[in-house]
Each structure stands twice: as structure tokens, then as C-alpha cells.
């Protein structure tokens, strides 16, 4: 037998095998460097169908930081502890993702979130403490006293489940109790599949819930110099900067996240947006938070990255005066209401008499708006969307109260 054909055959075979090795080696490590074959397969197999069925889902993932770092579909969709499994084309998956999935990599952030009002207090503000576990209530009350141990909002009963589910629940589910024992969903701010820091930093992301007459933060921001400059210079900002490396060079115009959460110029990053807040502005009568001094110092530390101390002190002093005067106005209205109830003139559960709505709107719309406007540089909201309607409702409330008293006295005679 001639050696020549055998030699040629071996050379051809070797060349083929070598080229196969080289092609495989050229594949990105983020695809192949996974913990199991299942995870490697998920790096591309899921997209085979879902590109056809839900293109945007795959595309959003592909442009995400998760994709760049080799976090693939299965990393997030694998069932976390106590989550229901679904067998899906050779993969065991969880289809309902919660904070329980994100925490497997981002545990410290989840813990910060748990301590915030975005967690259990947000849910309890609408649905009360009923669906929360005792340990969840206990934990949250430690950090946000009075935020979670409370009844469901009376409007949920009056307006009915459809309004609560499609209305209140859409925003307040940021702190929903999940079946797996965790609370909340990170995608409320970071959006699904993009898992984006840049999107979470956009004012419109916070504004998906923080808008409207009851908490007009987005509108106030839009009116403020911060908002105007953001829209003018957004294209020059680096919204994608890594949270721990964010500087004023990246975000020389702030968004909500810059002041309330970001670790700009070496500050501590936080996922508890109330960590730098010194007052309970959302309450009818605003009181200082237990950690007022520390929180205010932390916020001023952020302000000083762009502003001088005298300006910051002036803004705080002016805003605190608005808080005090709003408190006085709400207190006066509250006393009128309390007196009517005490004298048996106003009876029945909340939201059953027109005067209940006048009072509720006075503090819930006008009072809050004036206070938020004062702290956020929204002059029009302090005056025309805040103090002015508050004055109008105070007059109306007093007028109606006197009218009720006259009617009540007439009935008694």
C-alpha cells in the first residue's frame, strides 16, 4: 500500500479538525464561558425562536450591559428559591421574575431597596399590611416607621378593584409582596431585558409614577432649571456611566436619580431614595424624618457638587418656610374638619361627603405640590398649582363648613 494517499488523507483530516477548533475558539468568551452546557445553549438558543416571536425583547437584551457581560437569558430566568418552575424547550425556567431573581447577583442593592419606601410601604399605602408577611412588616417598620403597618387606603374599597388594579396597583406594585417571599420588582425602574442604568436615570422613568396632581415631581422637574438643561443637553450626558464611577463630568445636569440615588463624585450610591430626604412631604402635616440631620447633610453633599453652600442653604431655608406655612394652612383646614366631626355635623366614613374631597385635595394635591415645588425649584408649582388652589379650597372648605353648621343648627331647631 502506498503511503502517499494515507498521508494526504491525514493532512486533510487534520486541517479540517484544526479549523473547527480555531472557529470555535473565535467565539466570544461571554457565550462559551458559562457554568454549564445549559447556560451556553441559553446564550443563543432562546433567541432562535424569540427573535421571530418577540424581536424587541431579544434586541433590547442584546444591547444591554447584561449581554456585554455574558449574563444570558437563563441567568435571570432560572427559577430562584421558592419560584414556580416551568419546563420550556429543554430549560427549567421561571416566567414571573421578581426581585428574587435580580438579588442572586445584586443582593446589597436589594437590601437597600427593601429598606426604602419603594418596598413594602409603597404597597401598603394602597393595599395595607394584609398581604405582607409579619416579618416583612416588622423589617420595613424598622426603617420606615408607620409606612407599612396600616390599613388599605379607603379609596380602594370605594372605587373598586378595577380602579385599584389598573390604576394604583400599577405604580405601587413596585413594592408588591411576591410569592417567592421577596418584595418588589427591579424592572419597574430598570425595565425588562434592557436592565438599563441609563433608563433608570431618566426623569421620565421616575415620572411614570411621580406625576399628576398628587405628586407632581415630574412636572416640577420639567419646569425647573434642572429639567430645562437636561432636555437641552441630554445628548451630552453619559447616562450609562457605571454607578460607582459616576462624576459630574458624566452628569453635569442632574436628573431625579442623580440627587436622590446616585453616587456622584464618590458619594455613596443608594437604592433607598428616601435616604437623602429630611421631611415627610407627602404627609398632610409634614414632620421631619427621624434621620433628618444625616439625610439633609447627605443631600446637601450632592448639591454642593454643582452649587455653592450659600445657595443651597437659601434654597433649604426658603423651602422649609413653605413647609411651615403649608403645615399651618393644612392644620387650619384639618381643625375645621375635626370640629365638624366632633360636633356630629360631619358623619359617616371618609370620602362620603363633598367636604371630604375638598379637604383631601387641599393637602393631597395642593399642599404636597407647594412643598415639592419649593424643594425642587418649581416656582409655578409653589404658587399657582400649590398655594393658590390651597387658598381657594381653604375658603371653600370654611364656607361649606359654616353652611353645614347653619343647616345642622336649623335641623336641631
Amino acid at each position: 500500500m502506498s503511503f502517499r494517499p494515507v498521508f494526504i488523507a491525514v493532512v486533510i483530516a487534520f486541517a479540517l479538525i484544526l479549523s473547527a477548533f480555531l472557529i470555535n475558539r473565535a467565539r466570544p468568551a461571554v457565550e462559551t464561558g458559562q457554568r454549564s452546557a445549559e447556560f451556553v445553549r441559553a446564550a443563543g438558543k432562546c433567541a432562535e425562536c424569540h427573535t421571530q416571536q418577540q424581536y424587541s425583547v431579544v434586541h433590547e437584551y442584546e444591547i444591554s450591559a447584561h449581554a456585554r457581560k455574558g449574563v444570558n437569558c437563563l441567568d435571570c430566568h432560572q427559577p430562584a428559591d421558592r419560584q414556580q418552575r416551568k419546563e420550556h424547550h429543554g430549560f427549567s425556567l421561571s416566567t414571573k421574575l421578581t426581585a428574587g431573581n435580580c438579588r442572586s447577583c445584586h443582593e446589597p442593592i436589594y437590601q437597600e431597596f427593601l429598606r426604602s419606601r419603594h418596598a413594602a410601604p409603597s404597597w401598603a399605602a394602597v393595599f395595607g399590611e394584609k398581604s405582607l408577611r409579619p416579618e416583612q412588616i416588622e423589617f420595613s417598620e424598622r426603617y420606615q416607621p408607620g409606612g407599612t403597618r396600616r390599613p388599605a387606603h379607603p379609596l380602594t374599597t370605594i372605587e373598586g378593584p378595577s380602579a385599584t388594579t389598573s390604576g394604583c396597583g400599577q405604580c405601587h406594585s413596585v413594592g408588591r409582596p411576591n410569592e417567592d417571599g421577596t418584595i418588589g420588582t427591579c424592572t419597574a425602574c430598570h425595565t425588562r431585558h434592557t436592565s438599563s442604568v441609563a433608563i433608570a436615570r431618566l426623569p421620565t422613568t421616575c415620572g411614570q409614577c411621580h406625576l399628576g396632581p398628587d405628586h407632581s415631581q415630574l412636572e416640577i422637574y420639567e419646569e425647573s432649571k434642572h429639567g430645562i438643561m437636561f432636555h437641552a443637553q441630554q445628548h451630552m450626558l453619559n447616562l450609562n456611566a457605571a454607578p460607582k464611577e459616576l462624576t459630574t463630568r458624566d452628569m453635569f445636569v442632574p436628573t431625579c436619580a442623580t440627587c436622590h440615588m446616585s453616587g456622584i463624585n464618590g458619594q455613596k450610591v443608594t437604592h433607598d431614595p428616601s435616604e437623602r430626604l429630611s421631611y415627610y412631604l407627602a404627609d398632610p402635616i409634614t414632620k421631619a424624618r427621624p434621620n433628618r440631620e444625616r439625610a439633609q447633610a447627605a443631600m446637601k453633599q450632592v448639591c454642593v457638587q454643582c452649587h455653592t453652600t450659600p445657595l443651597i442653604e437659601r434654597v433649604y431655608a426658603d423651602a422649609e418656610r413653605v413647609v411651615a406655612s403649608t403645615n399651618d394652612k393644612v392644620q387650619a383646614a384639618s381643625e375645621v374638619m375635626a370640629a365638624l366631626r366632633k360636633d356630629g355635623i360631619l358623619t359617616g366614613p371618609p370620602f362620603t361627603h363633598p367636604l371630604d374631597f375638598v379637604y383631601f385635595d387641599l393637602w393631597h394635591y395642593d399642599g404636597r405640590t407647594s412643598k415639592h415645588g419649593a424643594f425642587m425649584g418649581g416656582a409655578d408649582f409653589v404658587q399657582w398649582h400649590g398655594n393658590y388652589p390651597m387658598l381657594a379650597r381653604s375658603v371653600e372648605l370654611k364656607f361649606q363648613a359654616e353652611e353645614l353648621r347653619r343647616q345642622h343648627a336649623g335641623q336641631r331647631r
Partner: protein
Amino acid sequence: MPANGADWRSDHQLWVEVFVLLNFAGLIGDIALAHSTNHFRRTSEYVPLYFSIGATLTLVAIVPLRRRYAAVWRDVGYLLGWAGIGVGLVGVMLHLDSRFFFERTIESLTYAAPFAAPLAYTGLGLLLIANRMVDSQSPEWAYWILLLALGGFVGNFVFSLTDHAQNGFFHPIEWVPVVSSGLAIGFLLVPFVVRVGSGYWRVVAIVLGLQAVVGLIGFGVHAAAILRQPGATLLERVLSGAPPMAPLLFPNLAVLALIALSGMVFDYKSDLRIPKR
């Protein structure tokens, strides 16, 4: 074609016909499984299934007529052959269209529907045509059959490379079919390039035997992987797991190549040479 009453053992044309028939029959189950993973989402996915059924039944009907109604056997075979080529080539385009045409990357090629798989129809179609156009008693016939077996092993090489790349070759054993089919390609390609002697054909037979062993082991490994696979039912595991039939392509193609080899041995019983061009 051997004369009436010729020994079936030397009737290589019949062997190829039976080979094609059995392959079309096997493709019925294979396509049913493969396209079920996709729930036959596009109507065109039914075409290879119905074609396989039709081709199998047609061959069952015409192969026995090979001697009595040679023209029927020949013409229907041609028709089936050309249709097979068409189904295969269109199938390749449609498989690539599943993802690769959108993003022309190695990743999309890896995870797209196996683009080389439909070429099985083209290969079977070419076998039917070659079996009719070329005299099965001639050395040329044996070389054509060998060439088509070589094409099959090229397909196996690409198939096992892309399929196992989906796992990132996580288990080193996944390289075995790539190495094995690479060897088969090397050894089957040489006779088309240089003159070879009978000793070389014996080496080729050993290499083909190795392919059969690799395929049978692969079948076992795939079956074991399917049993470990997450899935509510066995069918679901089969559909989403390692393709159970794929490793059997190795012994299948080894058989085809051995038919070609046996054609040469029976017809010449001596040192074989590539026909003069």
C-alpha cells in the same frame, strides 16, 4: 443493471435504492420530531414531512418494478430525485432564513435551524439520479456513490460542529464526531485526488467502521442526555434535547460508502484506480 436472477449481493443498484428508501422512511420520523420543536409554525415545514412520506411510498411501489417496468422505475425515480434536490436546496435557504439572513454572524449560524440538515434530501435525490444515469456496473458509478457519501460526511462535519457549538463543546466528548467526520472526509476525498490501491480501501473500510462505532456511541450519549434533560414528558425531552437520530447519520453514511466500496470490490476484485478522465 445485473441480468434477471442475478445475485442480490452484487446488485449494488438495488442496495442504493433500498438505502434511499430507508433514509426517506427515517426522515419521516426525524422531520416530524425536528419540526415539532417549532410546532410546525410555518406551513412550509410540512413540505419535507409530506415529501418523505410520498417518496417512501413511491419507492416502495417502484423499486420492485425495476426490472419489469424499467422505464417507470427510471422516470419516476428521476422525478423523485429532482424533487428531492429542490426540497433540500429550498430547505437550506429557509433554515438560514430562520436567523442567519438577519445577522450574518457565527453565532446566528450556530443557533439557526441546522442549515445543513435539508441537504439530506438533495443527497438522496442525487443518489436516485446517479443510480439511473450511471451504469451501476461501471467504476464511475462506485465513485459517484462514494462522492455522495463524502458529501454526507462533509454535512456531518458541519452538523456536529455547529450543533455541539450550541453547547460550547462543554463536554469534550462532543469533539469526537467532529474529529471522526474530519477523518472520514480526509480518507474519502483522497481517491478523487490521487490513485489509490486496494490496501488503501481496506484502511478506508476501517475508518468507515470507526464512523459506525462513533455514531452508535453518539446515539447512546444523546439518549442519556435526553433522559437527564428537563421536561415534563419524554416526548418533550426528545423534542428539546440532543437530536436522537443525528448520530445515526454516521453508521448510515458508512453503509453508503461501503456500498460504493463493495461495488468496486465485486466488479474489479483487484487494485482499484480512479477512472481515466
